[in-house]
């Protein structure tokens, strides 16, 4: 479990990237962190992983402070960064060198993940493309057994079948003890995996909510005509009609297109206040 309290971070004085944010992330959840470019998604992951230190405020992960980088903390956290640099050794050698540091490392999961991604363990990492290297790191993360998994743009560089593989592998590894945090701007790649959503905007957490709570309040639909203003929160023209974010009038749950929701929140942040956080009257 991760708790972030009144945490601020700035690279330069008086220019905070994150300003007094509060977050609570429970084990068993898959959290999607969304936000425009440069809003501090990667920075947030670095802070949670102890790679950056908060300028003020607190972060605790399973009761430990990430910035202290205690081994007990580090062996429970695996971070898949966007940029990585791998030694020029075979995939298998990589696993042999690093797996001993993770006591819950699962060799069967590792072998299964590599097979699913179609990676030959005897090939040198130096001869792999960016996407293939990414698959190796993702496989390691999934096999690591860590309780906290941090993914920064996990589907970047993956081809379409590999995105399927990633979703399949990760969904099979999610359980009550594990917390996965995924930052992405390809929401649709991971939408079905998420059960919580965190939206960052202008140095703040604009919204934090479970998908269940969200779908109880809003839904998306494609309509031929624009629905009435009492129901409609945001709309977008699509061929043949409108793609709309609607208030749930009858308390009936519908599908929720997270990409549309994200776009709606970018241009109309007040939706959070008006329709997402307060109890509905109807």
């Amino acid at each position, binding site marked *: 479990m991760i708790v972030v309290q009144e945490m601020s971070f700035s690279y330069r004085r008086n220019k905070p990237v994150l300003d007094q944010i509060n977050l609570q992330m429970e084990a068993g959840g898959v959290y999607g962190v969304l936000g425009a470019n440069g809003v501090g998604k990667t920075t947030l992951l670095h802070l949670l992983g102890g790679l950056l230190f908060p300028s003020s405020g607190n972060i605790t992960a399973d009761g430990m402070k990430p910035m202290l980088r205690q081994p007990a903390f580090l062996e429970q956290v695996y971070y898949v960064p966007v940029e990585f640099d791998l030694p020029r050794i075979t995939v298998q050698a990589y696993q042999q060198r690093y797996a001993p540091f993770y006591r819950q490392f699962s060799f069967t999961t590792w072998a299964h993940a590599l097979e699913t991604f179609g990676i030959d363990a005897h090939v040198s990492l130096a001869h792999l493309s960016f996407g293939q290297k990414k698959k190796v790191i993702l496989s390691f993360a999934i096999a690591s057994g860590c309780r906290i998994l941090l993914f920064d743009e996990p589907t970047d560089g993956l081809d379409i079948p590999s995105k399927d593989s990633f979703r399949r592998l990760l*969904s099979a590894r999610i*359980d009550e003890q594990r917390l996965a945090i995924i930052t992405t701007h390809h929401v649709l790649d991971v939408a079905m*995996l*998420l*059960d919580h959503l965190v939206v960052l905007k202008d140095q703040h957490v604009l919204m934090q909510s479970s998908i269940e709570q969200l779908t109880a309040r809003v839904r998306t*639909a494609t309509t031929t005509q624009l629905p009435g203003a009492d129901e409609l929160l945001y709309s977008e023209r699509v061929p043949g009609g409108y793609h709309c974010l609607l208030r749930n009038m009858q308390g009936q749950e519908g*599908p929720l297109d997270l990409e549309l929701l994200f776009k709606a929140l970018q241009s109309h942040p007040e939706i959070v206040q008006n329709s997402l956080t307060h109890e509905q009257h109807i």
Partner: protein
Amino acid sequence: MEFQAQTAIWLQIARQIATRIMVGEWPPGERIPSVRELAAELQVNPNTVVRSVTFLQDAGIIVNQRGIGYFVADDGVSKARDLRKKAFTEELLPVFFQTVDELGIQWEELKTWYQQHQNNSKS
């Protein structure tokens, strides 16, 4: 009017499982795949599948045997059919009839098409 009458993901999954039970993929008394296996297969969050499975259990289509897993109920097939039927009559039919009204289609016309459809599927 809304087209693509869609429902929540968990309900879509529940209906899909119901359909698979209806067509006999898992006969009554047989164990259906675990939540984890289903989640992996469908590439969705296991919590979503938990909701679907709970829903199916409440509908009496599957039964939970503690510690072993979920099994198709003895009358699971007919109940699965009921579930699909309910969804059809409550969600698809209204849209269908609304279109029928809009286009002014007569009962006799519909009947002819339906007979044509029956003949096509026989041959």
